[in-house]
Each structure stands twice: as C-alpha cells, then as structure tokens.
C-alpha cells in the first residue's frame, strides 16, 4: 500500500490506499467494492470494464488507479438517478440488449459515452465527412460500439436499443418479436 488517492465514484468521494500497480478496474472492484465494471480480459480487448472517466469512456483495466487521483468515475451503477435507470439502460431492457449481462454495464457506459461523442461531432471510422455533424445511423452505432464484445450475440438488439434511444422522440412501440431488424433509413 504505497499510495493514497481519492476517486470520486458515482458521485461519492472514495479515498483509498493502494499498491501503485493497481489498475482503476481493480481499485473499483477489489478495493471499493464497485463491481458493475467487469473484468473480461484485463487487456483492453473486450470493453467489459468500460467506465466514464472525467466524462469520457475508457477501459478501466488499462489505467493505473494512481493516475486517476481526484478524477470522477461513473459506472453503470452511477447512471441510475434517484432509483430511475438511465434512458440507455431502459432501452437495453426494452430491446433485450443483453443475455448473460456480464458485458452489459460496459456496453451501457460505452453507449452513454458514445452518445456524448456524437453530440460533440466526433467522427468515427465510417463517417464520410470529417467536419460536418454526425448522423447516428446503424452503421455508426455498430462502429462506435465495437470496442465492447458480447459473446451472447446481443449486438443487433443493442443497436436497436440505441436506435430507439436516439430516434426523434415520437411514440415508439416495441418491435413485433418476429420482424426483421431493418436498417435505419437515415
């Protein structure tokens, strides 16, 4: 235990003493019992540990906790406000955007971070125009969420969840269970 830091996690200041080798992910899970970020690979290759660090989505397994002293960390648990799930969490429920649920908190943090990036106009690999505003069609959603693996294969439902979430707020009804998941015509 050779460092003392304070992380602000899901709205609470959490002082913690830890080994400098401790990753942000292990600090959250093993020291602070914040277990919504998951360890799927510990190498930044699966996205299950995604959290929002000072507002940006990052893989917490590739960041040393000591480098985050004073930072703000938001996990999937912290997206719940006054008992109400975040709209992205509700959309995942609505579209069955998960099965085993293990990658889900990471997918959701990643999606929330992604929506902010889109709002800020950040282009992705599939954005043709590097300077204009971004239209979040299905191809963009897929590309922008591709840092989060899902072995259960919930991808098409996750895209549907985010399509719903980002659609103009007209009335949306749950899709009939057997209809094909059509490409958005945007």
């Amino acid at each position, binding site marked *: 235990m050779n460092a003392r830091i304070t992380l602000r996690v899901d709205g609470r200041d959490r002082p913690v003493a830890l*080994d400098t*080798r*401790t990753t942000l992910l*292990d600090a959250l*899970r*093993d020291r602070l*019992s914040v*277990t*919504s*970020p*998951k*360890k*799927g*690979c*510990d*190498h930044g*290759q*699966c996205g*299950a540990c995604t959290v929002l660090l000072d507002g940006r989505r990052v893989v917490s397994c590739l960041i040393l906790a000591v480098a985050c002293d004073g930072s703000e960390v938001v*996990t*999937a*648990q912290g*997206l719940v406000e006054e008992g109400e*799930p975040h709209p992205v*969490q*509700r959309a*995942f*429920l*609505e579209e*069955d955007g*998960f*099965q*085993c*649920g*293990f*990658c*889900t*908190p990471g997918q*959701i943090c990643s999606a929330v971070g992604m929506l902010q990036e889109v709002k800020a106009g950040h282009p992705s690999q599939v954005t043709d125009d590097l300077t204009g505003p971004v239209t979040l069609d299905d191809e963009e959603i*897929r*590309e922008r*969420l*591709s840092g*989060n*693996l*899902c*072995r*259960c*294969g*919930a*991808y*098409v*439902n996750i*895209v549907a969840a985010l399509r719903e979430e980002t659609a103009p707020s007209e009335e949306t009804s749950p899709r009939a*269970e*057997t209809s*094909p*998941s*059509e*490409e958005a015509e945007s």
Partner: protein
Amino acid sequence: MTVRRGAVGAPAPRVEGLAKVTGSAAYAYDRPVADPVYACPVQATIARGRVVAIDGGAAAGVEGVLAVVTHREAARLADTADAELAVLQSDAVAFRGQFVGVVLAETPEAARQAAGLVRVEYDEEPHDTELRADRAGLYTPEQVNGGFAPDTDEGDVDAAMEAAAVTVDRIYTTPMLFNNPMEPHTSVAVWGDGGDEGGGGPGEARLTLYDSTQGAHVVRSTLARVFGLPPERVRVISPYVGGGFGSKGMPHAHNVLAGLAAMAVPGRPVKLALTRQQMFSLAGHRTPTIQRVRLGAGADGRLTAVAHEVVEHTSALKEFAEQTAVGARMMYAAPNRRTAHRLAALDVPVPSWMRAPGEAPGFFGLEVAMDELAQACGLDPVELRARNEPEVDPESGRPWSGRHLVRCLREGAARFGWEERAAVPGTRRAGRELVGLGVAASTYPYYRFPGSRAVVGYDGSGRYTVRIGAADIGTGAWTVLTQIAADALECPLGAVRVEIGDSELPPATVAGGSSGTASWGSAIVAACHAFRGAYGTEPPPGAEAGADMPRDPDAERFAMHSFGAQFAEVRVDADTGEIRVPRMLGVFSAGRIVNPRTARSQFIGGMTMGLSMALHERGVLDHRTGHVVNHDFAEYHIATHADVVDVDAVWLEEEDAHAGPLGARGIGEIGIVGAPAAIANAVHNATGVRVRDLPITPDLLLR
C-alpha cells in the same frame, strides 16, 4: 397434459434485467465476502513431462504472500478418477498451461507478482499435439459425447457411391475453438465449520463456493466426491453467470484448485478468477475436426449414400469425444449410411462442451457437402434438401414428433429473397463487391434430462416461491421458468418468484443440451400441479409441495429434434477478399416458444456465434511448444458489433405434442448449427471459390 396459455408465449422482459443493466447483479467474483485472499495460479510451461523442482522461496518472500501451494503441499484428494480434476496431485505435466501451483496473497497484485517468481524446473518429454487424418494412433472411442455409438454402418456405402450418378467426396475441417464466455471462470472458495452459509455441526469441514457455473448441483456433487465430503457439506452459489456456452457445464480444474488453495487459509474466502489467457488451456475447448463427407445421389439429387467420417482430438489426460458425425445419422433419407469417429489422444488441454457439440462442427461439413451436391446435380439447394426429406428417422425408424425442415426452408427462402440468388456463382456484383446467397439446414436433438426437482411454497400474502437449482447463463431461464410456474399455478406472473442458482435449492440438471426449459420446466409444472392438488386455490400460509421431473414415455416412441433453415448473404471485396455478412435469417421449428423475446435473442445469439465461427475463430496451437499462441481477444477474434449487421430469427408457430407438458424442444444451441455452412455456401455463390476449411479468411478467396 398441457399448461394453460397466458404467461407462456408472452414476450415477458427478463426478471433479472434491471439488476443486469444497472450493474447490481453480483457474479461470482462480485459477491461481497469478508477478508478475501487472492489466488494466482502457476501454469506449466511445457506440454509434457515432470516437475522436478519448484522454488517458491522468492514468491513466499513477496510482501503479502500467504502461501505457495504446489503438488508437494496440496492436500491429497479423495477421488482422482477424473484426471482433469486431480489437481496438484502429482509431478506429472500433461499439457502446457496445466496448473502446477497457486500463490495466495493479501492483494491480487502481490499474488500475481509472486506467481511470476515461482521457479519450476521440468524434466521435459517429447510432446505430440498435431492432429492429422493420416497420423498413427487414431482410435475408436467406446462412445462419443451424448452416449452415442462411435460408428454406424447401414447398407453398403462404398457400393452405393460406386453406383451413384453424382457424388461428392471431400474433406472439411474446423479449427480448435474456444467458448470464451465474457465472464472468465471464477471460483471463490471458503472452508468453514458450520459457518453462516448453511448448517452442519461445528468441526465439520464445509466448503462453500461462489461459482460461475451452468449447474450448481453438478459442481457440488463433483467437488464433494473429489474432496471426500458428503454432498450436504458442499454449497455452490451462482445466481448470475456471465455466459458459459458449455464451458461451465461441468467443473474444471480451477474449481478444485480454489478448494485446495482455500485449505491453506481456513475461514478466509479465496478468490480465483482465471485470466482470459488461462481460459485457453483450462476452461475446455472444441476439438479441431477433420471430416470426410461422402454423398452419393441419383441425377435427380435423391441421396443413395451418406457417409460422415471424422477425425478429432482429445486430451491424453481425459477423453472427450465430440459427436461430430451423429447429426448425419438422422438428417437425410439415404439407404446406405455410415458414420465414424476416430480420436487422437494428444498432449493438449482437455476439450469439452462448446455450444452444440457435434452438430456445430458436423453441420459445417455435411451442409457444405450438400451445397456441393446441389451444384453437381444442377439443383437449387433448397430443392435438393426437400427431395431428401425422410418420412421417419432413418436411424431409429421412429416417427418424427414433428419435422418441419422443408417448411423452414421454404418460409426462409420466401422471406430472404432467395430467388435473387445467382444461379451461376461469381456473377453477381455490386461495385467492387461480389454478392452471394447461401443456405444450410440445421438441427438439434430434444433433450430432457432426469434429475430435477422443484418445490413450490406459498407465503400467505398472494406470493408463490418456486425453488429449483437451475441456472440462467443468459438464456432467459429465470424468466421462462417464472412464466411456466405462473401458468401452471394459474396466477399472475408477478405473484411468482423463482429461486435458482444455489445447490441448497432442490436439485436440477445442468444448463446444457438445450434441455433447461424442458427439464426444469416440466418439474415445475409437476410441482405446481402437486401444490394445487394438495392445497387447491386457497393454500394456507407456509404451504409447500414438490415434484420430480415426470417420466417422458414419448421420448422412447418418437424421434424428437428441432430443425431450422439458415440463410446468409455475403459480400466479398473482389480485390482484397474481405468478407462482410450484411444479412442472416434463421427460420426455426423448435416446438412451442415460451418467451418470444428471450427466444429470439437465443436464436440470433447462436447465429452470431456461427458467423463468428465462419469468419473469425481459430485457435492456433504451436506444435513446437504445445501452446495456443493466440490466447487473447486481440488475436482470437470473435465477432464485434461492426461484423454483425442484420441477423434475424423467426419460427414456426407450433407445439410439439410429444415434448412434455410444454411442447417446447429447446432453443439454446440450434442457432449456431448450420450458420457457418450457410455463410460458406454464400461465399461460394458470390465468388465461385469453395472453402472447406474454417475460418473463411480473405486470403482463401483470391485467385
């Protein structure tokens, strides 16, 4: 006896959904435990030989290290009949990556550092890890997974091939594959003497395991045997499981290692989570397969001969024989049929179940061969399959409980726009891409395993509790069992709470073989009926009744299988050979669908894994070292969001009158079966290149 329709058939949202999306669902490692100890395994760096010396001195000197446990220190196990589970019992090394020790420390960082400091010297022996069809030492197992005979032979395949107007005789291969559930295999083990997790008298050693498993009871009974305890002194708790796909269907070495390690720190919970890398040697895998498929047919495409002969590997340590050719026994009508399985026992990690063992690799060979036969006969592949539809099960002679393969094929062809498929391969182009469509059939048997029991209780205020030690590994079982109980009790969905994932609950069979809904569900139906029979509709508070899963006489009288038709569109870059799959559609016949929402997810999840198998997945074993070199997610690719565009599944509205009280045949595995063949067949249609070896990579498509 069927259950009333109401909750069953409705797209109920997952009962545990909120816990999962908000991150409060506690998986094995997440369970809060007091004063934990962290375990880091030490793995063999040779593929075969003996450990001659271990120096744990430097490791023991690391601050915070509590113990270094090797085969010298580890307790002797009571039962070592299962060699995979005979962990740290000798100096022998049977495969690279096998456990040779474990370090326990106060922090994960110290444990990992110390594990890296354990010096192990080996007496290395030559190893053998290479599977080839022409190698020496191939043998016939007594049976293959599922209890099937290894070989069958009916009629005279050779003569029929000789006489056939059209033949296909090809070799198909599938690589070593890894289940890779997102949650790595985890066991948190604590030895106590009648602690808070369950009764037992003081002084009686008890083992509690927070585990990630597809079957709490099978882990309990196995570990009780291995550690020489009565089963009631082992408790396995695992309500949330981050995927398994078969790899968590039976206990593996890490479960035993956690138990052994925890003996060094009695009373303290030992947390052992395999790393993603360790999973490649310790969590099971699918054997590579080399499949010779021979089809003989008349000019009209009617099959006269089907032969499916398979060479695959197992571990020299423990036999697991994938039933790759079993599906070919019942799939098509042909008077002359032969199947065979030959194994090479190699110095490799222990293979095990992976989603649709047998059918998943076997239907790559068989269904690509059928596409080749269609091409050779000048027939549409859908029509070829329709012409070879057997009246009864060719293997057993029993009538089908419901075989609707042709309906699936026709329905899928209509929905998918099959008529757009180019009759001549390599002739449809869009910009710089070649476009092709492909089809393949799929099937999976109906399994219902005996051994489950459910107990229904009433709390007096309108709430029923249904208790069964089942597992929801993402299948939707939790929700589906709640629906089944609600209908069987004739009460609202919200009045039922189902408890699963704990060996203290009444016993349940493993979440495997797509059997959960049928097995556990029929036990629940029986328990609910027993409850209502005993107490009627106004039960007293504390009323309780249970029942075992009833026998299933129809299973002896009918051939019971689910069927499906898989369609795929591929686009291949004409210059680089890069492959995209813009569309996949599966049409399934699986009996009654209990929950369309979770069922669709299961089907498309299986198809997505099939896409991944078709294009991405390949474990590369370095035969010089016996090491799986691409043992992480950077190099062992599974499909990402960007690879999966439009995957959809539909099903025939039906009920299998012979498939127990629910009429449901199981859906967890059929989605992967045939999907890789559909993609391979579409690649052929797009490019004219016939790929017979998975995965299909760009370099194979350049001429």
